[in-house]
């Protein structure tokens, strides 16, 4: 056989393989990840709950009967109604009302949305900062690396909630004079973002150290691609995998941190309640018997965090080839 015939043969083979290659949908359908998702009832249930709650939060405006952020829609006369099925409940308020006459069901939906948005924004800031610094530390090495990692080590000796509290205090001092309604959101997002970057930085740095000695990076360097471009276009896609797991678990942590700060009175004001703020309001009424104000937001938060945690655990195991 001649070389030419060989080449044609190879070409045909490649074409044939390409034709046979399954679509991404089929690949997903046959993948290990989906199989392991479907094989665990707990994972499916927590996935279902997570999606349900996110959808509920996203479409709060349409689902909720009233807008708890709008002072015109609430009436103080309606305050402290128990849930509908309890004696003395009002059919208008499914889960009862709080001390300002807000419908609790609506407040939970809106509060869930606030908690989610702050959690997601905080995690995005933490991930961006952590991935950036991790890449830089791993790729640059030397003094830059030593400095960034020392800072990370020191921050790691403190629990995240403590860091968030200190940052909250400082940012609060910087924003002094502005009304809390305008600053609370920013303060929370910055506190959460700066508290959780370390884990990303450490993970990304570790993988970057491995990647940067591989041939493709050397090749990219040889043909004169500038370092920032190599980091972003070539190294980053190869180190991003483990970050996904941290993202999921961190979302639960960020939401807990937001709720804790709001519960401690350092987060969102009662006029734009998150789940934590609702629990804070409810905690004051625990002794007078109005249990529903604290119970429903509390259960919502607990179930959501548990579901996201279980999903994160599953994702960690599913993406870890050693456990397959």
């Amino acid at each position, binding site marked *: 056989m001649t070389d030419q015939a060989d080449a044609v043969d190879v070409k045909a083979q490649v074409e044939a393989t390409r034709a046979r290659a399954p679509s991404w949908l089929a690949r997903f359908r046959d993948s290990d990840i989906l199989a392991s998702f479907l094989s665990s009832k707990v994972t499916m249930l927590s996935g279902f709950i997570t999606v349900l709650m996110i959808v509920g939060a996203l479409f709060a405006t349409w689902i909720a009967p009233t807008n708890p952020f709008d002072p015109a829609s609430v009436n103080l006369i309606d305050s402290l109604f128990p849930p509908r099925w309890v004696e003395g409940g009002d059919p208008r308020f499914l889960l009862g009302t709080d001390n300002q006459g807000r419908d609790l069901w609506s407040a939970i939906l809106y509060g869930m949305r606030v908690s989610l948005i702050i959690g997601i924004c905080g995690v995005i800031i933490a991930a961006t900062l952590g991935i950036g610094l991790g890449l830089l530390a791993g790729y640059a090495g030397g003094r830059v690396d030593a400095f960034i990692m020392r800072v990370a080590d020191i921050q790691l000796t403190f*629990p995240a909630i403590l860091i968030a509290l200190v940052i909250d205090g400082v940012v609060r001092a910087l924003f002094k004079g502005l009304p809390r309604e305008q600053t609370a959101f920013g303060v929370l997002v910055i506190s959460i973002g700066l508290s959780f970057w370390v884990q990303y930085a450490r993970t990304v740095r570790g993988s970057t150290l491995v990647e940067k000695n591989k041939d493709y990076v050397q090749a990219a360097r040889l043909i004169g691609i500038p370092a920032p471009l190599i980091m972003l276009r070539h190294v980053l896609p190869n180190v991003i995998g483990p970050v996904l797991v941290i993202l999921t678990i961190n979302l639960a942590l960020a939401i807990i941190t937001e709720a804790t700060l709001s519960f401690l009175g350092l987060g969102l004001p009662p006029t734009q309640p998150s789940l934590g703020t609702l629990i804070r309001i409810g905690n004051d009424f625990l002794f007078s018997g109005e249990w529903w104000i604290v119970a429903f937001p509390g259960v919502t938060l607990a179930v959501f965090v548990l579901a996201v945690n279980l999903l994160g655990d599953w994702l960690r195991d599913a993406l870890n080839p050693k456990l397959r």
Partner: protein
Amino acid sequence: MFAFILRRLLQSVLVLLAVGVIAFALFRLVGDPINQIVSLDTPAAERERIRLELGLDDPSIVQFGRYLARAVTLDFGISYQFRQPVAKLIGERMPATLELAFVAALLSLIVGIPMGVYTALRRGTALSSLFMALSLVGVSLPTFLIAILLRYIFSVHLGWLPSFGRGTVVQLGFWSTGLLTVSGLKAIILPAVTLGLFQMTLIMRLVRAEMLEVLRTDYIKFARARGLSDRAVHFGHALKNTLVPVITIAGLQLGSIIAFALITEYVFQWPGMGALFLGAVQNVDIPIMAAYLLLIAFIFVIVNLVVDILYAVVDPRLRTSMQAA
């Protein structure tokens, strides 16, 4: 061994210095400290005089040196809110926090280790599954939700335990203790359980994992082959070898218990350092914030150091590798 301790000591000092820089920077970040001291209508000349008097026109590095020198002698300045020395405020509240942290840590060890051993030895039984499920809840639930739940059940609903405060306190010199009176002991139960629950689940999972690991080793098989009773194998051989990492983790967690105590203290209105710090954050009381930060860093560093040294003392395998290093 000596070189190892010396190196560790040097690292600890560096960490403390770094935290000192942060604590000092806090003062700078929030603007002109003169504004915190004087009223709005103080004339400029008067402000200048106070500035000179307090040494605020010196270079930052000189001021930082002075701050550190004072901090070493436990002089952290005057609280903006209380107009009292920060050291005195923290000193008054420290016994409450340390007692709470100590009882919580003890509780988590006493309950966590047996639960871990049980779940490792009797895998798959209903009680084991229950413990594992409980531990998942303990890890996932935010501390303040657990605190509210316990308070609702045991104080509001059943009325068994007090819902806030420390009960009657006995003064022993500078130390005020609630552990000597019945009301004080009753008052510490709920906060200590709240605070210890997370650590307990952590210790339980750790003991379980370590036990499962150790039970697979050759010397356990050999001990069984020698015909030793289950009891001797499980507790004499297996458990003993799991305790080293457990003690390490428990020690390292002591610092975070003290830090996490602030949420528990807030819910139960426990008169400790955490509650003081929270109030400081709310009112931007920088001297208290900075001092608390330094104190926590100090506790962390000391605990880390002690655990490292203990580790070397307990585990002979580590000692040789340290000498080599």
